[in-house]
């Protein structure tokens, strides 16, 4: 009973916060509205009995949104929303499309003949997840690892303008790198 009420409250909060993301003028508020929405999703995941995944979502989303706030403010011309302006295009078609999509999805959800659950949840879903990731799903895990590593390389390449020739000179023979900010380890 309590969990059902909680699920409804969290659902309403998630949608409200999700809508507010695009209603706020202040980028800080928009980012943290998104965080609130995602934390509500994490709450629903916790209610479903996935303790580990719920807490991991809380951890990841908090850090991610804190970093995101920096970029939001960096790349918006009006980050604090003190002079409200519309930064939208194509609103009407998008609204129609999204409403139609929601109607379609909702019809599907409500009319689908969902299968009955097979089996019961294990006593410790976290353990099951670990065994699965390290066993039959090891390929998924390795793909994720490779993707993460590739992302680290790709983001650094994309985001930095200075390469090794800028740092170590044209013949790469400079005694110490020419960096705009001094480093912390022995330099």
């Amino acid at each position, binding site marked *: 009973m309590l969990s059902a009420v909680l699920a409804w409250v969290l659902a309403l909060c998630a949608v409200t916060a999700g809508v507010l993301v695009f209603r706020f003028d202040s980028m800080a508020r928009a980012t943290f509205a998104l965080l609130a929405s995602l934390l509500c999703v994490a709450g629903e995941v916790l209610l479903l009995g996935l303790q580990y995944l719920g807490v991991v979502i809380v951890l990841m989303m908090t850090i991610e949104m804190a970093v995101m706030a920096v970029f939001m403010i960096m790349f918006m011309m009006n980050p604090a929303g003190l002079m409200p302006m519309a930064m939208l295009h194509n609103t009407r078609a998008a609204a129609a499309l999204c409403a139609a999509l929601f109607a379609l999805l*909702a019809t599907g959800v409500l009319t689908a003949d969902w299968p009955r659950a097979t089996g019961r949840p294990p006593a410790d879903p976290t353990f099951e997840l670990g065994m699965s990731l390290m066993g039959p799903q090891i390929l998924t895990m390795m793909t994720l690892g490779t993707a993460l590593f590739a992302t680290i390389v790709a983001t650094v390449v994309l985001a930095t303008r200075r390469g090794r020739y800028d740092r170590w000179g044209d013949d790469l023979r400079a005694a110490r790198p020419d960096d705009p900010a001094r480093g912390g380890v022995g330099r």
Partner: protein
Amino acid sequence: MTLSLLMLLAAALFCTGLFGVLTQQSVVMLMMGLELMIGAVILAAAAAWRHLAPANADGQVVVILAVTAMALEMAVGFAVVTALFRTGEKDLTDQAAELRG
């Protein structure tokens, strides 16, 4: 807390996020919409695990996948925005219609 409620919530979040993606001009706001859409995927996967196949951990693996996808999306997205802004002071999607630097 039925499967239908959670799936409806996921659909609502997905459509809200999609609306943001389609309407926002700023690239960073567009990414907020994407995050919301992936949040809906996370919720749908967790709900499907609990209500359809709880004995199997595959639903949880999908959640892990979606969470990772979210992190990757944000990292690459911000790197691309930074690169776009470096090359031509572009921070709106309309300005970035071509990939030429």
